């Protein structure tokens, strides 16, 4: 599986000199997954993006598809007229994606047409002309095609055109450098949005994904910044004495939950993003931190050690003193967030000396571990709820990993130095 990605990687190194792309390894594809073949698109030069490769990797990463290697393809049609149903049936392939690219010699732009065919029924499920795009945009167009195919075959909106934000740390002592990076959801095209010699932490996307909130340090003082990505403008939302941490944007984008400690000790506050005004939500002598909103914006989850060990509690967003404990399985549970449908939580679960990522089903109360640990943290749902991204300790430092929500298909994304605190961007609706 690993070798498959090297061709693409080498190609991208040329176009993206500033930052190394994340090297991607996928393991544990489910044998019950839907068999599909992504035929190389006709009309693409050797130096251009291998669009079929990008779509193949997107679909394979979900664990819901088993993609056919090129060597095993009986033929490489570029439209349904050239496809022989029987050949694909003997290759045990239920679906075939194929397409062709045409370059406009005047503008240099590329138009892509693609098809999705059901080889069992001989039916054409999708046929699209994608909007003309520059060669540099062909990865994005490939992700759009993967979204369309994924939604057609699963009924679930794809999340392949989304972004991830994460933090990298390199060097030691005074040479240490932290970067806040935004990359495509598959780890390609990383771009440093902010750099600092002091820690950068806790990126949180605005729901329109135009802004990131994060924590920075400045001469021994912390602050929560709001960074508008397109303009590079940075606004300091708050910088009280003590902790200014854990920013979490509300689903409607108007409020931000965060942690301040200047009044007594770490407690949850809710800010009006536009005015900067705030109100205190919790007031407890224990640590209250890591707030996270329910999808309807009515409830906040947070981590608290008010019961001795850190566990997850919830409160209505109006506040109150009757915080309800929601996790009971495991010695500790930390940093919860809701699934997009609000039916489950992803948490960091500590038991048997290992910090692992776990899903808590809210209706049944059952906890399912989906990572191996021992130092996993910072879980974040893909916007369609089918995959969780988190940080884990690799052999050469911290790296990112994804797991399908059934825990079967894992992906590692690494680059030199530490890579951590992934935050999956919302989908543009």
């Amino acid at each position, binding site marked *: 599986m690993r070798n498959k990605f090297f061709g693409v990687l080498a190609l991208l190194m040329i176009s993206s000199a500033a930052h190394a792309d994340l090297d991607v390894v996928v393991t544990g594809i489910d044998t019950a997954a839907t068999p599909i073949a992504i035929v190389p698109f006709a009309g693409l030069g050797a130096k251009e993006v291998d669009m079929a490769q990008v779509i193949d990797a997107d679909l394979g990463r979900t664990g819901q598809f088993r993609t056919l290697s090129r060597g095993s393809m009986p033929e490489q049609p570029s439209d349904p007229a050239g496809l022989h149903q029987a050949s694909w049936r003997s290759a045990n392939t239920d679906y075939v994606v194929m397409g062709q690219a045409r370059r406009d010699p005047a503008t240099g732009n590329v138009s892509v047409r693609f098809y999705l065919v059901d080889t069992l029924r001989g039916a054409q499920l999708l046929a699209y002309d994608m909007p003309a795009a520059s060669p540099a945009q062909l990865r994005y167009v490939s992700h759009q095609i993967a979204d369309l195919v994924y939604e057609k075959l699963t009924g679930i909106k794809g999340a392949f055109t989304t972004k991830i934000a994460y933090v990298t740390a390199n060097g030691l002592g005074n040479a240490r450098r932290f970067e806040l990076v935004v990359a495509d959801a598959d780890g390609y095209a990383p771009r440093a*949005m902010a750099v600092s010699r002091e820690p950068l932490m806790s990126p949180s996307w605005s729901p329109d994904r135009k802004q990131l909130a994060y924590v920075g340090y400045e*001469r021994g003082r912390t602050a929560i910044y709001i960074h508008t990505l397109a303009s590079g403008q940075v606004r300091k939302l708050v*910088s009280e004495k003590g902790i200014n941490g854990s920013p979490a944007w509300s689903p409607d984008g108007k409020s931000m939950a965060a942690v301040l*400690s200047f009044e007594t000790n770490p407690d949850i506050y809710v800010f009006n993003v536009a*005015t900067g005004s705030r109100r205190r939500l919790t007031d407890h002598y224990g640590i209250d931190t890591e707030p996270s909103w329910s999808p309807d914006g009515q409830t906040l989850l947070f981590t608290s050690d008010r019961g001795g060990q850190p566990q997850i509690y919830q409160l209505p967003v109006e506040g109150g003193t009757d915080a309800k404990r929601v996790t009971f399985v495991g010695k500790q549970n930390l940093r919860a967030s809701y699934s997009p449908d609000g039916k489950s939580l992803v948490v960091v679960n*500590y038991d048997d000396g290992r910090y692992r990522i776990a899903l808590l089903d809210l209706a049944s109360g059952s906890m399912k571990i989906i990572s191996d640990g021992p130092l996993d943290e910072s879980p974040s749902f893909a916007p369609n709820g089918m995959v969780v991204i988190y940080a884990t300790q690799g052999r050469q430092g911290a790296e990112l990993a994804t797991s399908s929500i059934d825990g079967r298909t894992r992906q590692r994304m690494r680059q030199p130095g530490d890579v951590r605190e992934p935050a999956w961007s919302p989908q543009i609706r």
Partner: protein
Amino acid sequence: MLKNSLVALVTVLAMAGCASKGAHNAQDTNPSAAGSSSSAGAGYGSDGQPVQIGDQNAAAQGEGLFDTSSKANIIYFALDSSDLDSAGLAIVDKFAKYLTSNAMTKVRIEGNTDERGTREYNVSLGERRANAVLAALRTKGVSANQLNVVSYGEERPAAQGHDEASWSQNRRAVIVRQ
């Protein structure tokens, strides 16, 4: 509140401007493109330099009492604990004597944790440790306005390993001259 926010914003932007000669206000060079292209990164600050956050010259400082290399200013903690042991109290004593007789000197107490647990929770734990040192110094008569606290959580490990030998080096509070 509003006024404060604006002042703070200007400070950050001015700092970012000094930090590098490259323009920090990233321009979206391709606003009309169909979709935000991966490699062009339209809508994500296509051509801009990253913004500089924090101090460019976060230099180490101090000597003798503040000498980090001799660990004279480092107080270590047991797992899940913010209690000072006898070695920690001895360091507090030395600093208390120095600070009460040097009332102009201000220090920052930096709380740190090992890497286990989540990052923001560890920021809170680190602050608890730094506050324990602050409380001990206050008990010995050090003025509150000489003392500041910051927690780095697990973000600034002294040792890089993933075992108790490293973790015990990282569960610490460091007193630095401000």
